[in-house]
């Protein structure tokens, strides 16, 4: 039988999505979660020492092989990438939803001070946010939350992995990019 870490490597290599420990365990009945975690750590160390173009990261509740960011500019020469970047307004809306979820549209607009319907719809289309349900208040407005895909895109292990927003007292002298 091949080494456990290489079996796991083959799993990660063929998976389109971050692979959870539970899924790996279900496919490997002879081992336990602890054994899998150790093998993944050893694989990760090997990739880190090698300093090649591939690394193993923990993301969106699972594990995934990805390229190192130093190779991004090279990779873009070989594959077409559609613009993934978000406008400042979309990023702001996404940040509000990420930090305040579950949240209603009216609360988002209260914070941003502008209509956000079109941006919410674009974020829904891009699967960065989802409709979580309705709030039990008059009008039963929809409430929104971020998706697992959001975690994947921003390389977050889970939503608690988001950096704590800067302390309000630090913001007295705001450093924001204002238009010229």
């Amino acid at each position: 039988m091949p080494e456990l870490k290489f079996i796991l490597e083959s799993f990660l290599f063929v998976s389109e999505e971050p692979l959870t420990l539970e899924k790996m365990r279900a496919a490997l009945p002879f081992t336990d979660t602890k054994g899998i975690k150790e093998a993944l750590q050893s694989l990760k160390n090997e990739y880190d020492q090698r300093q090649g173009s591939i690394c193993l990261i923990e993301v969106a509740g699972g594990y995934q092989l990805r390229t190192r960011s130093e190779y991004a500019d090279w990779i873009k020469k070989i594959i077409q990438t559609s613009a993934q970047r978000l406008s400042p307004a979309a990023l702001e809306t996404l940040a509000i939803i990420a930090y305040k979820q579950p949240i209603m549209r009216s609360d988002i607009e209260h914070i941003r001070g502008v209509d956000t319907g079109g941006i919410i719809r674009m974020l829904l289309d891009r699967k960065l946010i989802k409709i979580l349900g309705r709030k039990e208040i008059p009008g039963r407005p929809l409430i929104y939350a971020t998706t697992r895909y959001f975690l994947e895109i921003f390389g977050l292990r889970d939503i608690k992995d988001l950096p704590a927003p800067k302390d309000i007292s630090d913001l007295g002298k705001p450093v924001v990019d204002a238009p010229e």
Partner: protein
Amino acid sequence: MCSDIYKVQLENIFEGPMDLLVYLIRKNEVNIYDIPISMITDRYLDYIEWMKSMNVDIAGDFLVMAATLIQIKSRMLLPVHDDSDEEDPRQEITRPLLEYLQMKAAALQLNERDMLGEHTFIRSPSKISDPGTLPDHEIRVDIFDLIKAFQRIIENLSSDISLDVVADKLSIKDRMIELSHLLKEKGFLIFQELIGNAAGKADIIVTFLAILEMVKRNAAHVIQRDDTDTITLYLNEITHA
């Protein structure tokens, strides 16, 4: 029309009143905890005036904020009672500003992360550019996909609704007879061709309704092949004697 050419969208400059306020506070290097409300209000109104003179459409949000600022300014002018249980009127603007700045900072932090498809890549990059129906669960759809599917159906059916107005009931019946004859003659009909040959919207609707009615009455059935979008209409064998 001519003036439209020179119209500038205010949103392109400042997306909303909060954006404008942040800009003014930063530009004038004021302490956010001690906003010189009179000065900021004046600058804010100057800006709105300038925009008006430039023929810019000013969104209602900007005027609401202007009213709020003026109201705070006038409350600041009232004599302060020294038993001051009263909150600083400026809190009404300081608190939301701080929250907004906090979220703006959070957005910048998000932006600094290595983004999939921009800084880092997985083995199937097509997945990034087309998240398609992505999973939060075992089945790879979310509720938004479901609504969109339903919305598509409704949009496609809207002809069904206008039909009562547009179409004459007799002509549906006529069209059914016509279609039955055609079907007997040819064995099958391609839906897209029927629609393509129709003269005008009313005709399309009548044809569509006639087909629906025939299917409903079990006089015909419709088959859509998986590999193409072609919808084919067949006549049913008459089973009831």
